[in-house]
């Protein structure tokens, strides 16, 4: 086995989730029919709980265009897309030397993130609440698709 290129491109969580969905992870409730291994289903389960599950290609493209003015490093942009911070405190751990580089503009950046990228799925607090949210999300997706 030879490694031709160790890094042939970084993937956001959304792209991996999209790839797994295109292999049939979402539509198969029994998890036996789809041509995927159990370990791939585990990755799908993890990604569906993160902010990536509601994102679309268009929202990510829009975010990339708009964040050019803030001069962020590639790793920081990737972190923001994957985590989708909703407050300044969360952005602080992602961007190095946040106050020096951004100062007042942190609030602008947070607002832009909240506007452009869709919010993550609701956090499960009581168990009944979690079941209801899970049922709502796939139905909403099917309605949009049709």
């Amino acid at each position, binding site marked *: *086995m*030879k*490694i*031709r*290129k*160790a*890094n*042939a*491109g*970084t*993937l*956001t*969580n959304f*792209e*991996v989730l999209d*790839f*797994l969905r295109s292999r049939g992870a979402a539509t198969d409730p029994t998890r036996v029919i789809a041509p995927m*291994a159990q*370990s*791939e289903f*585990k*990755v799908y*389960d*993890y990604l569906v709980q*993160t902010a990536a599950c509601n994102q679309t290609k268009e929202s990510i493209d829009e975010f990339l265009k708009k964040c050019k003015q803030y001069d962020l490093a590639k*790793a920081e942009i*990737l*972190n923001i897309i*994957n*985590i989708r*911070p909703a*407050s300044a*405190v*969360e*952005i*602080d*751990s*992602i961007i*190095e030397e946040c106050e020096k580089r951004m100062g007042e503009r942190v609030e602008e950046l947070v607002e832009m993130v909240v506007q452009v990228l869709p919010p993550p799925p609701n*956090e499960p607090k009581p168990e009944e609440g979690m079941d209801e949210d899970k049922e709502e999300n796939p139905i909403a997706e099917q309605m949009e698709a049709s």
Partner: protein
Amino acid sequence: MFFLSLIEHTLRVPPHLLSLPLNKAIMGELEKLFLDKVIANLGLCISVYDIRSIDGGFIFPGDGASTYTVKFRLIMFRPFVGEIITAKLKESDTNGLRLTLGFFDDIYVPAHLMPNPSQSEPDPENKNQVRWMWEFQGEKYPIDGIDEIRFRVHNVNYPSIPIEQPKESRPFAPMVVTGSLDYDGLGPISWWV
């Protein structure tokens, strides 16, 4: 967290797969070989993304199977240093925490990378486990398994395979991620929301 890796491999396709279309047979063999395995310095292989080229098809003398040189891309899981990841608590003991992502369990947060100052207290519910508390401005915040924990990747290690291991130690982990909670915005999400 994830990235693509271009790999070239000389693959022997066993004869019982001769009835399948070539792409499917090769995909099946690649998945058996690489899926859910750790490649040193590259990470954990999650999935085969695509097959770029298939060359060869030679049959070596005395062998019943054909051998192909395949170039393909794998989706690898390898967090980079400084990445922020959300994970669930698996265990906590006096050395620190152990977090899990579902598909990957070997994430450790050692005691010296916990938010400063913290202390561990024996957990009233579980006898073997210890609960970590963070003291901030006079209040104590516990780290319990209720919600997800955000951590920053401090280091990714690929320890070499040991020749012998003492009986009671943990099963060998080919890839170990060390995380840190010592920063604003890290730790259980409920602390910051």
